[in-house]
């Protein structure tokens, strides 16, 4: 069974069971933005994680707590960290923001998602969570648009960081 069959089978199972349909859709939907990531580890991992436990402290997985409104490749898989761009790229100074719950302390934090720019598409560890994502006419929380090219950063997109700004009031 190839992975597309797997997806279909899972989709069918999900539809039947109503379990985690949301994460299936979010993961698959997001693939589009990342594009051409097939075969898709994020999808596989999402499936694996439905059975296994969540990994909110592993910053190389989509479950990482601060990644609640990401749409792109994790810089932690590209030679960067959650807040630092990989060597050779340029951090976009302007970012969209999200509000994510840290299960370690039960507090919500404001996270700025800075794209790293000016380097080849990283194409690793694609994640698409969408908590609080808005349409483009409300761009400050819109994760589906490329923020590279803004504020003097080069326009090509490499990966996305998730930089914790402050405790959410």
């Amino acid at each position: 069974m190839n992975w597309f069959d797997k997806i279909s089978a899972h989709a069918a199972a999900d539809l039947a069971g109503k379990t985690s349909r949301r994460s299936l859709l979010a993961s698959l939907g997001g693939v589009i933005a990342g594009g051409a990531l097939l075969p898709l580890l994020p999808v596989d991992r999402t499936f694996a994680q439905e059975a296994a436990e969540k990994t909110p402290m592993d910053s190389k997985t989509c479950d990482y707590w601060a990644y609640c409104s990401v749409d792109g490749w994790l810089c932690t898989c590209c030679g960067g960290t959650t807040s630092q761009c990989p060597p050779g790229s340029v951090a976009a100074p302007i970012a969209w923001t999200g509000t994510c719950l840290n299960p370690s302390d039960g507090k919500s934090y404001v996270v700025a998602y800075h794209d790293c720019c000016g380097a080849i598409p990283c194409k690793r560890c694609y994640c698409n969570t969408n908590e609080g994502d808005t349409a483009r006419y409300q761009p400050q929380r819109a994760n589906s648009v490329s923020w590279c090219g803004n504020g003097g950063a080069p326009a090509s997109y490499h990966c996305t960081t998730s930089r914790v700004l402050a405790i959410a009031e």
Partner: protein
Amino acid sequence: MSFFGSERSSPAATVAMRRGLGLVLVASMGAGVAASSAQTIDPASLPEPLGVLVLPDKPAGAHWVWFCSFVDYGHGTLVDADSGVVLGTLELGYQGILPQLSRSGDAIYNVGMYFSRGFHGERTDVVEIFDPKTLAKQGEIEIAPKSMRGLPSTNLTTLTDDDRFLLQSFFTPALTFGVVDLALREYVGEIETAGCAHVMAAGSRRFFSLCGDGSLLTVDLDNSGTEKARQRHRGFFDAEGDPLHGTGARSGDVWYFASVRGVMHAVDTSGGQIRFLEPWNFGESDEAGVWVPAAPSQHLAVHTASGRIFVLMGAVPDLEPKPGGYDFHRGLGSEVWVFDEQSHERVDRFKLERGYAAAIAVSQDRAPLLYVTAYKFADIYDARTGVRSRELSDNKELSGTQIMILPVP
């Protein structure tokens, strides 16, 4: 080196390809060829002329469609949907989206973003002009390097209804629109918005946009493409409680937009007016969950002649927000729901064969096809019955990740 074949491609050769060479049994266009028949070669036909194909006129009743592949450098594939034959491809540039087809049929435009060194170096944004028959580039118009990129939508670029101007979404992150005069092949300039995005044509000198406060902004251009007037029309939608997806679909003078929770909003732009039609709820819950528009990119289509609205729908467990806000609005679809424009009744519900889809579109003829993409695949359905007639797949008819669809009129 002289011993290499070095016959140049010449106009004569380009014409010669239309000759009936005994050898070229397996033509690329048209329907099936007996692939296993023997192939005898007339020595007089050798050497075969070398050339470059030119597209024929689209035959009456034919269904041609562009499937567009996203990310990195994007491209479109022109497919004869009846035969499944690839007719040609068109490069669309960095995170390219969709070409724009002129109503006259005499040009294809693409707003391309390029870098002088692959993915680095100097950025240049251009409107490229291609010949629709040869797919050869005819020229380009440089515009401000501000084009919006990211997840594609059909409503980030448009032509005015007379093909005179092209309007392009900019994002810096200020939201503006670039105006290009296609007749003069000149970049006109930029039109500011106060937080409005997506651009929809509403006449030869008017476009509108959706705004962050739920209003609709109309902008009127003069004959040079400069802003002549603007008006904000308040109360089109509930931007906080149930915002609209930015990708809409047009039926004559009416534009449709679906909200994230499944309310259809429509605006009639006829007669130079803006008239909001009564919103109607088309969402539904059943044993699969709550059905909402599945809007990763292109979830809405209208077959104008029959007044049928097609919506890609997906089931989600519920509409409750997560700690950071709701996140149910960008999933894939598994069904296409068909509504009547007038009665708003759901007249059909097509379960998609593959179980997931990213984008849909409908041809406008009397035997309409429903086009559906699913990344590495595209499927062709009868839009009247929901029966799948053809599957296209990666590395065969397609290449890349298909997420946008543009039927050729």
